[in-house]
């Protein structure tokens, strides 16, 4: 019984740590984003946010993904406004628990990028 309690306690602590460390990524679908040289403004603006851990831009899929640091939040409207300020339009936005690396790997896998 004592062992079971310890296991449960450890599991609870580990789970809570895992839950707190859960990734939050804001992923936006963007119109007009056709040129890397021009679209760099989006990345720079996103990386300039204190909440940002990583950014991924994919021109072909029209995706901008902003992964947040642990425990950080960011309003979707902030992402929309920054993309608009960079000169582009957001057509859809969603929050996922996938890190940017996962999103990038998934998209590149579909595109056949090595």
């Amino acid at each position, binding site marked *: 019984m004592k062992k079971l309690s310890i296991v449960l306690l450890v599991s609870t602590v580990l789970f809570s740590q895992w839950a707190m460390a859960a990734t939050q990524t804001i992923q936006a679908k963007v119109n*007009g984003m056709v040129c890397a*040289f021009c679209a*760099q403004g989006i990345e720079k603006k996103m990386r300039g946010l204190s909440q940002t851990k990583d950014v991924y831009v*994919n021109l072909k899929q029209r995706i901008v993904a902003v992964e947040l640091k642990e425990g950080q939040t960011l309003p979707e409207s902030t992402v929309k406004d920054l993309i608009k300020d960079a000169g582009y339009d957001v057509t859809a936005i969603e929050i996922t628990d996938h890190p940017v690396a996962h999103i990038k790997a998934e998209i590149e896998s579909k595109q056949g990028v090595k």
Partner: protein
Amino acid sequence: MFFEVLTRLWLTAAALMTSQYVIAGPMGFNDSYMAMGDFNNHWRESFINYAITPRDALGVGATYMRADDKTKTRTLEEVIYTRLLQRWNLPHAQANVWFIGGVGALQGEDKQEGVHHDVSKVMITPGIQFDYETTRVYFAATHRFYRASDINHDFTSARAGFSFYETDYDKTQPWLIVEARNMNGLSDKVEVTPMLRLINKNFFVEAGVNNAREPRFNFMYIF
């Protein structure tokens, strides 16, 4: 072809304009600087502007120009305002209409038939650009007035090209771009220049040789 006579001022204007049009936009994103350079035997130009809003930029430029027959040289130092008049953000394309206008000091000299004549005037340079771009094709058309008292050096340019293949956002993409342009009064020819363009999120360079077999190099950098 489009214009003939006004060799001097037009070259100045043309150099300035050319560097502004090498990519879809003649300005960077809000709160950014854009530096540009455009160099060949007939002009050497550098330009920098600052985007004070997502649609407006203020900048300064300096250009040296020379007529095809070397009888005219010009320098133009300008303060330039750029305005994004209209933008269409499409799913896989972007189109823009830009206003670009400047005012500055035009100086130079004419050496024709043994007569040497100095030029020193105020020049204004309002113009319009339309461009359309996808990840694979590019087109831009520009017309800009370059006017001072008794001087008309209007500039006209058309650019079109394609990328050889798609690339990731953080990889360098090669393009083939062909530009035809004319500067009234500085050249009676249409300069046609095929150029290899390398574009990356951090840099933009073009290099080519025009139909007069003269080399040309452009660059842009946003920071």
